[in-house]
Each structure stands twice: as C-alpha cells, then as structure tokens.
C-alpha cells in the first residue's frame, strides 16, 4: 500500500486497507472500502454511516470514473476520508480535490513543490462542487 502523501483532515487515519466492494457487503464490521473504476459508488450509500475511509483507485490516470465516484459519495453526504490511490499525478490532484478527495496516496510520490503549485494554482472556479468554493457566477451576482 502506497504512503498517504497528502491528507487534508484532522481525524485519526484508518490503518486498515480498504476491502473490495464485494467483501464490504459481507463484512459488516469493515470501515474501509476500496472502489475500482467500474464499481458502483451508489452501492455504498446505504452504509455511509459506518464507512471511515473510501479508497478510489486510479489504475491508469486516464480513467476518469473515479472523479464521478467521489462526487457521488460526497453528494450523498459522505464525510469520511476519500483517498485517491494508484496512478495519481500532480496534474490531476487539483481536479480530484474539487471532486471531494481529501487524501492522496500516489504510487509514485509527487514532487512537493509541483504539488503545492498544483493545489494552489486556480483561485477561481467556474463550477460549484461539494468542495464549497463559490463559483465565478456566484461571485458575479453577489
């Protein structure tokens, strides 16, 4: 399991790795689950109360399904850790952050200076997401 390089939350991290969605359904005590790109994020919604960590895997950076999975979970009210794992590259992390990821465990650690630039580059956004940033249109119209 790759190291968590960035974590934007203060609670105690879950030590256990996430179980698969299939195993999660059978293990009523599991609190960490790992979503693969093809998994149905909405299957987790009935169980959000007991989930403390969702790892969303990006086996290749070009497979963007994990962005939708993340937003769907956040839109459903999930407040636990949402961790991007796999081929997580510096040029994707700002998008991931906007979709609700608050932890990053890239297979290959990111250059800290590049990552800081990436997280902070865009001060304004055109779209509202659950990250709470006011979109440009909201600022234009008070």
């Amino acid at each position: 399991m790759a190291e968590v390089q960035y974590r934007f939350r203060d609670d105690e991290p879950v030590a256990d790795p996430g179980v698969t969605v299939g195993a999660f359904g059978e293990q009523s005590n599991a609190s960490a689950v790992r979503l693969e790109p093809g998994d149905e994020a909405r299957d987790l919604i009935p169980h959000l109360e007991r989930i403390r960590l969702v790892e969303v895997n990006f086996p290749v950076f070009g497979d963007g399904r994990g962005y939708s999975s993340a937003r769907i979970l956040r839109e459903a009210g999930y407040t636990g850790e949402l961790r991007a794992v796999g081929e997580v590259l510096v040029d994707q992390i700002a998008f991931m952050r906007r979709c609700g990821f608050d932890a990053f465990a890239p297979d290959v650690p990111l250059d800290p200076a590049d990552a800081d630039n990436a997280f902070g580059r865009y001060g304004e956004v055109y779209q509202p997401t659950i990250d709470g940033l006011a979109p440009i249109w909201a600022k234009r119209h008070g």
Partner: protein
Amino acid sequence: MYRYDTYDQAMVDARVEEFRDQVRRRLEGHITEDQFKPLRLMNGLYLQLHAYMLRVAVPYGTLSSAQMRMLGDIADKYDRGYGHFTTRQNIQYNWIKLEDAPDILADLAKVEMHAIQTSGNCIRNTTSDQYAGAAADEVVDPRPYAELIRQWSTFHPEFSFLPRKFKMAVIASDTDRAAMKLHDIGIQIVRNEAGELGAAFYVGGGMGRTPMIAPCINPFVPLDQMITYSEAALRVYNRHGRRDNKYKARIKILVHELGKDEYTRQVEAEFQHLLGQNIEPPLAELERIKAQFADPPFEKIGTVPTFEIDRSDPDFALWVDNNCLAHKQSGYIAATISLKPIGGIPGDASGEQIRLMADLARDYSFDECRVTHAQNIVLPHVRKDQLYALWQQLDAAGLGTPNLDLVGDIIACPGLDYCSLANARSIPVAQKIGQRLAAKQQEIGELKLKISGCINACGHHHAGHIGILGVDKKGTENYQLLLGGCEGADTSLGQITGPGFDEDGIVDAVEKATQFYLAQRGEGERFLDTYRRVGMPAFKEAIYG
C-alpha cells in the same frame, strides 16, 4: 461579443503559467512523454507529422478584429506565415516549437483567447451557427448559451478524463448550419407553445468510423436547467461509456448500445439527483452574457440613402449571389469570405490575409468576424451600400472567390500532408477536383464536397453530398467515394458507392457523378435532391459503368 471580466482573464492567465510549468517539467525530464501528452493535448498541442501543431480555440467561431489580427501575427511570429481554419471553427498552426508554446498562449491571453481543451478526452470547444446574431431565421442568438457552456465545461473537475473526446454544438434555428445532430451533444434553442425558450437535447451523434445521427432525448429543457441537464448527460457517459476500446468509446456507442430510451432514463434519474445539488448558474448570469451579445448599432434604413446593392459589376454580382446571406436587419447582409480559391488549400490563410480580414471586420462588420465549420470566414453585419468596396479589397487579396457551397468550396482535413493519423492526402485531391470542375461549378450549383484523409472524419465526409474518404491500400493512397450525405435539418449519412479509386480516378469519378446529375436533374433540384430521387444504383452505373 463576449468580453472577459477579471475572473475569465484570471483563468486563462493561470492556465498559461500552468502550461509553462508543465513544458518546463517535460523539457527538464521530470515527466515522461506519456505523462506530458494528455497535458499538452488539453492545451491543443499535438505532435504531428512535421512538427508540433497548436490548435487555438475560437469559441462558437466568433472573433473580434483584435483577436483575428493576433491570429495573423502568431502565424508570422511563431509559425511559417500561415494558419489553417478547421471544421471545428478553430485555427491550427502547423510548425510550432514546444519551447514557444507557452509564449503563444500568453499572446493569445492578451486578446482573451486560449487553446484550452481543444484536444484531449474532455469537453472541446463548443461550436455554433456562423450567422448567429445575423440570420433572419434564428429564434434567438445561440451564442450566449454556448458561452454558458464554455464556462461550465472549462476545467470541469469531473469531466476532464472522459472515455473519449466530447464535442458540443448549439444552434437556434431550424436551418441547422452547424451539423448539430452530428455532435456528442447538439442543443437547439427552441421556443415552446407558451413562448418560453428552452433547449432541445440531441445526444450521441458523431462521425468517425461509426457515424450516427443524434436522437433527441429531451425536446425542451428549461433554460435554468440546461447546465444541470448537460452535467447529467456527461456523468452517465463518464461512468458508463466504454473504456475498453477507444474505437467504441464515444458517447454515440453508449447511446446506441443502451438504446436511446435507457440512456435517457439514466440521464433523467441523474438529472433529478443533480437538481438538488444547486449547480445551475442563475438566469441572471445568462442575462449578463446575453447583454454582451446585443445587436451592434445598426443604422436604420432611411438615414442613409443608398442601402441597396449596385450590381453593375458582374463579377461582384456573382459573388453577392453566391457568398451573401440575407440579414435579419434590413439594409445589411452577411458576407462569406471563401478560403477556397481554385487550386488552393482549403482553410489556409496567410498571416497577411488574416490581418486584412481583421481590418475588414473592423471597418465593415462592427469589429466582428466568424469562422465557419466549412473553413471559411464570415463578416456577419455588412451594410449593403458598403459591400462593393469590401468586395474590391477581398478580390484584390485573392479572397473574393465566389463559390460558397459550390463544388469548389471543398471541406478537406489536413490529411497525410500534415496529420500523423491520416492514411491518405486530402488536400491534393481537393485541389484537383477544384481545378477540374472550376468552369462548371456555377452550372452545377449547390454541392457540398467533403474530404477526410482517414476514418476519423475530420473532413466530415459522411455529411458531404459527395464525400471522399482516403484509405491506405497496401501502402498506397486510395479513395472511397460516398454519395448522399447531408448535415442540417434533414441530416443523412453518405453511402459508399463501391470500390475505391486512386488519386486521378477519384477526380474522374466525381466529375462523372456531376455530369450524371446535370443530365438527370429536374427543375430546381440540387445535386443532393437528384441523388435522393434517382438513387444510388443509377449513380453507381454512371460512375463505374
């Protein structure tokens, strides 16, 4: 025209610096080409046959004269003195150096332009009707809706790694001049019986190797839900579009495999969910954008005595008849500058020509011009009494070719002369056909001929009354002929006539098809009408017999 405010400007400025940093990391070896490629593609930078190619976005095809002038300056400063206008209403430069690319983006940002999302598996530049705001038949100017989509789709955090590229078009008249039904999402702004405006959504059209005409999945989405509905349509695609095979990854395949009804059901369910997420810009934002597309200060008839066209110069009269469209404002006309001189390269213009067109837009068309998907330039608002003076300047610069929508007005992709995906050259075929039929083109009348150098169909060959597809036949160039394609309200896909031809053979075949048409045509029939009436077998006999 839409002007950036400080927010819009900050976005493109930040992008320039981001790309400058990405280029630096690539040149210093911190990232591999595999990692860099999607980043440069999202800034429109390809590696083509001879060099890097930069595709610059022209949102809904609209340019101010200052923007057009900058495009000409970039051609001279960073390229080899010319640019190529594309079927996506954009412009491409063929000879770009990677190390110059950030500076070019910085120059573009000075005139509120960019190359954001002109490639890559993301939402591309939104296209529209080139006569928007001028056409007599539009319900409303479609560009404010396209601008709303531009902003929503720019750096969309969820939809930047879609299964495949995603193209949207917005129109607002029944005469579809943007091939709307051949887009991933086509939107037609319509008015319902109650007089309210709304958006009809057509999803899952496209050309490429599996051409499909988009079905209408919702005939009326209220304007204050249009972005939310788009988001739902995209989310279903992002989650369920095929990623196992890039040739089956476009949304048209998903819509086709699920069936229109099931896809629509999923979109509607996602839409109901997203309505609760408050992601829709307020109508006040749409009104803000609309105000910037207000009509220019047209002069009213009567204040100037000579608003009619003097047709005494026959060359000018011919150009007026071919290249001009009736305007919604009496006394004005929309004029098309053909970038298809006989024997020329379709869509190419020199830096000097681009700057001249910028000056003419400033002097004759309220500072505005348009790029058309047929690779021409439109001056949308020309006073009729100034048209002759305009034409004289165009004609002197080789820009007065009177062939809009005639057989010489050929759409051609760059083909194997420039493109690393191509199987055959497109431009030489266009040049030869243009020369062969030059003397006949007025007699033949409207005939839309479109050439692609490979199955990706950038030259829209499926939608040509005559389409030509270049293929690789055991290492030599070969050309298939298609007949009967059409974009617009009665969109149809061309059918292949039979065995392919070599370069000279395809020119002969096109000539035979036009000769057969001339022999067969009924009163008032265009080539397409005759083809639809007479049918493929008769044309096939004429071509191969």
